[in-house]
C-alpha cells in the first residue's frame, strides 16, 4: 500500500470495518443460532475485504474459503444436526450480574487495547514495500517464502495437528454401540 492513499480507499476501509462491527454486534445479540451464524459469516466476509485492502489478498481468499466456507458450514451443520431452535434452547442469555461483569470486562479490555494502540510503532520495512513485493512476485510468494523457509518445522507440525484433530473428531463423534469393547 502506498504511503499517501486516496481518500476513497480509506473510506472503503472504514465502511468494511463498520460492517464487520455491526454484523458482530448483531451476531452476539441474536437468539437463534442460525441467525447468529449468518451474521458471523457477514463479519468474516467484511474481514476478508479488509485483508485485501491491507495487501493480504491471499489471506483474504483463504479467509473466504476456510472461515466463511468450511468452518461456518461445519457450525451450521452441527446446529442442524442438534436441531437447536426450540424455545428451551433459545433463551440462553445469562442474568443481569453476568451482563454487568461482561460489560465491565469489555470496557476494561477496550480501554487497554486502545491505550496500547497509542504506542509508537517503528516500521521494519519501508511504507508500500509489501505492495511492491506483491507487484513483482505475485500474491502468494510473499506468504509462501517464509512459510517454507523460516516456518517449515511449524508447517510440518501443523500436518500432525490436523491428523490428530481428524482422529479426535471421529472418535468423539462416533456413536457408542453395545458391541464396542469397554
Amino acid at each position, binding site marked *: 500500500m502506498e504511503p499517501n492513499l486516496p481518500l476513497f480507499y*480509506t473510506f472503503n476501509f472504514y465502511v468494511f*470495518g463498520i460492517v*464487520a*462491527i455491526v454484523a*458482530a454486534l448483531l451476531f*452476539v445479540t441474536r437468539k437463534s*443460532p442460525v441467525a*447468529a451464524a449468518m451474521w*458471523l459469516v457477514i*463479519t*468474516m466476509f467484511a*474481514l476478508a475485504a*479488509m*485483508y485485501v*485492502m*491491507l495487501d*493480504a489478498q491471499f489471506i483474504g481468499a483463504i*479467509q473466504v474459503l*476456510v*472461515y466463511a466456507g*468450511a*468452518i461456518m458450514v*461445519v*457450525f451450521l451443520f*452441527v446446529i442442524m*444436526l*442438534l436441531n*437447536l431452535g426450540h424455545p*428451551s*434452547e433459545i433463551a*440462553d*442469555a*445469562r442474568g443481569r450480574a*453476568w*451482563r454487568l461483569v*461482561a460489560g465491565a*470486562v*469489555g470496557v476494561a*479490555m*477496550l480501554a487497554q*487495547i*486502545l491505550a496500547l494502540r497509542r504506542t509508537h*510503532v517503528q*516500521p*521494519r*520495512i519501508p511504507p508500500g514495500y*509489501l505492495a511492491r513485493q506483491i507487484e513483482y512476485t505475485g500474491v502468494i510468494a510473499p*506468504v509462501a517464502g*517464509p512459510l517454507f523457509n523460516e*516456518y517449515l518445522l511449524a508447517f510440518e507440525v*501443523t500436518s500432525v*495437528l*490436523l491428523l*490428530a*484433530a*481428524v482422529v*479426535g*473428531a471421529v472418535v*468423539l*463423534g462416533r456413536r457408542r454401540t453395545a458391541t464396542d469393547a469397554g
Partner: protein
Amino acid sequence: MLAEALFFSAVLFTIGVVGVLTRRNAIIVFMCVELMLNAVNLTFVAFSQVYGAGGQVFVFFVMTVAAAEAAVGLAIIIALFRHRQTVNLQNVNLLKG
C-alpha cells in the same frame, strides 16, 4: 491504516469476549471464540504491513488451528448433546463445586 485496523480489531475482540461471557449456548460461545481469533488475525495482517509478510504466515497457522479446533470442539458438543440432551452451558455443571 494500521491504527484503523487495530481499532476495528480491538472492537471485534471485545465483542467476542462479551459474547463468551453473556451467552449460554455452547455453539454460540464457540462462534464467539472464532470471532476473537478473527480479530487477532486482523491485527497480524495489519502489522504485516510494517513488519513484513511473516505476520500473514501466522494468520495461516491461526486458521489451521482454528479449523482443527472447530472440528474437535463441535465433536465434543455433539457428544455432550448425546449425553445430556442440551447444549446450554448452565446445565453442564458436573465440575461445579
